[in-house]
């Protein structure tokens, strides 16, 4: 792994044109992928996709945020910023996975939940809150992987899991560095400075207890070798899914609760 890069340099890699998205990974990691659409309440959000597939023959449910590979694709998927119905689709598919005893694999790749009038009107806050609460007690294993950016509650809505892995250059943050600079310093142009002090890298996540694993990227970034990065992700998933599926589900839920329960620093 490359250890000498700043958070800002890693963010540049994540933003490199040609960085693989979930649409690139699915055919290389899974077989028999069937996409499922809609939240059954309002509509089908294109920033979140989901479906069922096989991983080494084992049935799994896949839920992912969708980044576009060009402007047209990004318009189609709203730059991976989900609407409430995207989160509700995710929850529907997670519940379906629970019913049929399939593990859930979430791929996180979003700058944040969509901020807009329609999102507010349809309950963006409620949709995210509901996912967080329901995923905490979902009676099937959940593994989440951050592919690129993971911003704010919009990422956490797919991030309550038994184990979180970060691709080597991926970042997880309370808000995008730009938003952070804008909120705290009223100056969005200080985003580089924000990015470097916010502690957002994969290593930071492991140290802070947010993530368990870092998945190595090919030299220079995932875009340099799609086959290799897909293989690394598949290898990780194969190992973890098998490990989590062997666990007693009540034990697993207890560990999932504890994973989040212990994050925080305070004195008394």
């Amino acid at each position, binding site marked *: 792994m490359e250890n000498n890069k700043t958070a800002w340099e890693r963010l540049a890699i994540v933003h490199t044109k040609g960085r693989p998205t979930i649409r690139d990974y699915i055919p290389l990691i899974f077989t028999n992928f069937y996409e499922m659409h809609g939240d059954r309440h309002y509509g089908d959000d294109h920033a979140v996709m989901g479906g069922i597939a096989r991983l080494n023959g084992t049935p799994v449910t896949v839920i992912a945020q969708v980044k576009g590979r060009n402007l047209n694709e990004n318009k189609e998927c709203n730059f991976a910023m989900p609407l409430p119905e995207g989160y509700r689709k995710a929850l529907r598919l997670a519940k379906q996975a629970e019913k049929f005893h399939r593990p859930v694999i979430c791929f996180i790749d979003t700058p944040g*939940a969509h*901020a*807009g*009038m329609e*999102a*507010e*009107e*349809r*309950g*963006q*806050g*409620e949709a*995210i*809150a*509901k996912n*967080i*609460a*329901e995923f*905490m*007690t979902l009676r099937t294993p959940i593994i989440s992987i951050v592919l690129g950016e993971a911003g*704010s*509650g919009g990422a*956490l*809505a797919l*991030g*309550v899991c038994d184990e979180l892995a970060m691709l080597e250059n991926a970042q*997880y*943050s*309370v*808000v995008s560095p730009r*938003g*952070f600079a804008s*909120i*705290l310093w009223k100056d969005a142009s200080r985003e580089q400075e924000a990015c470097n*002090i*916010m*502690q*957002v890298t994969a290593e*930071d*996540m492991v140290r*802070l207890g*947010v993530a368990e694993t870092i998945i190595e990227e090919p030299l220079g970034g995932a875009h340099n070798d799609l086959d290799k990065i897909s293989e690394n992700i598949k290898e990780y998933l194969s190992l973890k899914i098998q490990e989590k599926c062997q666990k007693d589900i009540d034990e697993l839920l207890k560990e999932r*609760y504890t994973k*989040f*329960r212990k*994050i*925080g*620093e*305070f*004195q*008394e």
Partner: protein
Amino acid sequence: MFNDFFNVVKLRFNGTADDEPAPLFKCPRCQNTSPLNRYEELHRVCPNCNYHGRLSATERIAITVDKDSFQELDADMISCDPINFPDYTEKQEELRESTGLKDAVITGTAYIRGIKTVIGVMDSRYMMASMGSVVGEKITRAFEYANENNLPVIMFTASGGARMQEGIVSLMQMAKTSGAIKLHNDAGGLYITVLTDPTTGGVTASFASLGDIIIAEPKILIGFAGRRVIESTMKQRLPEDFQLAEFMQEKGFVDMIVERKKLRSTLANLLSIHGYSEKEV
């Protein structure tokens, strides 16, 4: 709003000492003035337009629970500095000094018309009641305590969202609190949220939205993304009433809007209807 304070002070100092005018309150919404003591008697509600001003956590507890029944939990918990954020420690020391608070939420047990409940109240004077480690931990413990003791929980929310100065650690408090609420919920416990001004960001996207019953005070702000963010990034003009309690009720996210003067009796009745009863104090 912080404006309340400044308006009151300004009007006080404008009067001369000789005629000793009664201090006045100028409402930031309707702009009318009324005697300050009248505004205070109404627990900071404007007598002209029913504007509900912000209360401190202590004031809120005093007007909500039975006299002397509040027993605080985790009173001494203070935050560390998980991401070594510049000036965060100093800022908190100053705020602890000026507000008398340890962080942005007070939790404890209390009785409302004789019925025991766990209660949590956020205080917007402390870093806009943003959620960091202490807020997350205290709320989580409050739900765990309620769960162990078969008690209901009433949370008065107010928040600007996640506490930026704690980075990703603050985001994880959304998961921690929501997890504890889910366990309390699955065990059959009642959770009532009272949304107060303003309830936004990560708090809206976690414990504020998870109540069995969601109450809001009139005309308060409720939302996930801020109005300014939406207007600037989406180039959308937003309606006047956007994200007000009445708007959110119309959209289906608030059960009832209750005026401050009726909150205590409403809460007491809701607890009672759910089978929680008077116990010996």
